[in-house]
């Protein structure tokens, strides 16, 4: 880069720095408030950081019966991991069949899956709740998990991915005597790590952060996810501010960590979802 470019890009960089600062404010506020006492938070005199960080807010949070954080964390972790594993498995299987196995009825199945893709998910929550109540899934973890496992969108993306998989590799495998299952398990799946990581991280994040469906199904505190715990905490009559922010920090920290470690894959996943891959 020459001198002139560096000079003209200066205002651009300044702009970006300013917006970046704005974007970081909410993270700063979680950190600041979760380490303050109640009177420090509500003081009319602004302190940028607590002079005495209150780490005890976190231990107090885990002993507060009004906010079952540990149950919430356990539920969210189990739900997100199970959703991730089964969604990737079932979607890649179906995507492979739709892309590579010639069979009668394939177009009908593909059309059916595309049709469900058109239905806005949150709009069907009332009838899905009715079906789930009929199946006995209310207040259970599997009731929260099950609808999230089956994603027409990720089936579609896996199909597009396998359509571009080199046919020679598959044919060589078939000539070596591999069955369809063998081709899938030994050739396609090991070569799908990129798309599985990309869609998998997005699935994990979406599942951990989901709110409406867990709220509808998890009516009993034992089935609350982190998000439902936080929401209940937020709407309780007497707000305990330090613990509320400690809870927000605990709820968001695992995901920020996952995000920073897996960012490369998340970027790929975003491109997949936006049709840019």
């Amino acid at each position: 880069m020459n001198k002139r470019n560096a000079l003209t890009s200066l205002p651009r960089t300044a702009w970006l720095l300013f917006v970046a600062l704005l974007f970081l404010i909410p993270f700063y506020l979680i950190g600041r408030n979760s380490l303050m006492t109640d009177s420090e938070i509500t003081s009319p005199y602004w302190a940028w950081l607590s002079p005495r960080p209150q780490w005890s807010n976190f231990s107090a949070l885990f002993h507060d019966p009004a906010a079952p954080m540990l149950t919430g964390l356990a539920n969210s972790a189990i739900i997100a991991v199970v959703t991730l594993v089964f969604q990737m498995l079932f979607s890649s299987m179906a995507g492979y069949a739709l892309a590579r196995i010639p069979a009668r009825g394939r177009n009908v199945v593909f059309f059916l899956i595309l049709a469900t893709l058109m239905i806005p998910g949150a709009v069907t929550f009332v009838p899905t709740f009715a079906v789930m109540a009929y199946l006995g899934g209310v207040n259970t973890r599997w009731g929260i998990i099950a609808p999230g496992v089956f994603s027409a969108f990720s089936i579609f993306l896996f199909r597009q991915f396998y359509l571009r998989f080199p046919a020679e590799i598959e044919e060589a495998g078939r000539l070596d005597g591999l069955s369809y299952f063998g081709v899938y398990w030994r050739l396609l799946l090991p070569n799908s790590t990129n798309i599985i990581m990309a869609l998998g991280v997005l699935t994990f994040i979406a599942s951990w952060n989901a709110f409406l469906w867990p709220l509808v199904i998890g009516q009993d505190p034992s089935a609350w996810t982190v998000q439902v715990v936080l929401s209940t905490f937020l709407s309780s009559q007497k707000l305990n501010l330090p613990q509320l922010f400690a809870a927000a920090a605990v709820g968001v920290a695992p995901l920020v960590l996952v995000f920073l470690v897996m960012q490369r894959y998340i970027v790929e996943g975003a491109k997949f979802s936006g049709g840019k891959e």
Partner: protein
Amino acid sequence: MPILQKSQADRSATFAFWAFVSPALLGLTVFTLVPIVWGFLLSLSHAQNTIHPGHFIGFRNYADLLTDEAFLKSLVTIVVFAVFIVPLTFAVSLGLALLVNKVGWGRSFFRTVFFIPSAVSYVVASLIWKVSLFNGLPFGFVNHLIGLFGVHPVAWIGTAHPPWYWLVLVTVRLWLQVGFFMIIFLAGLQEIPKSLYEAASVDGAGPGWPVFRYITLPQLKATSVSVLLLNLIAAFQAFDEFYNILGGSGASIGNASLARPPLVYLYSLALSNQDFGRGAAGGFILTALIFAVTLLQGRIFGFGGSEK
């Protein structure tokens, strides 16, 4: 003999096909197709306190909802929300993508900072926006900042006039989703052939508005359409931030009556009042509205994908 072999191969392919698609097909059937049919039957039924259709009353649930002022108000609310959030998200995410794409220093740092809110849930963001950032008391962060300029604290969420709560609702979603769309725009920008810009500069067009208007924007058309569509469909299904910032069911709780989107209204109708018939009917009306708006957008901007 070859014919027999072929039909055997056909049969094993057919068997493998169904074995591979059946888990997904079964799941989508039970959790998407069956609910649609069940929901349609419910929407034609008087289903108070029951999840079972059966007491059929024709289209009365639809008629009731379409004359229910609170429901109609919720449709207006969500259209107003979409009118704010969709163009704003589009402009900001495209603007950030253009800046980040050209910045000489700290490119991956900026990308990470704008993208990282995608890891935060709507509930956590609503919590920060409501209790800290836009808290109406003097200790709220924004009130502190405007206080430095001698402005009195503003009740951001609690008042209908002026409707500051829109600022709260729009900025929270903007912060959460803008990074995701910026990433999609960045990918789109990188696909534009450099030769187009070189040709333009040979023709004497310097970097700036004309190049953006006649090269960048047209080349981004497919990307723009997919960003608009994803954003629009998500906006019409807004629930989390309204529920957590303004309050949930019932007019008495919080400030829910200020701006209640359709999903919050349907949630209180079905889950609090246990009126599953009307709750289901409302879902179909909202779906129809989403389809109509999507088609309208398609008429104006095209559906993307076909050009290039």
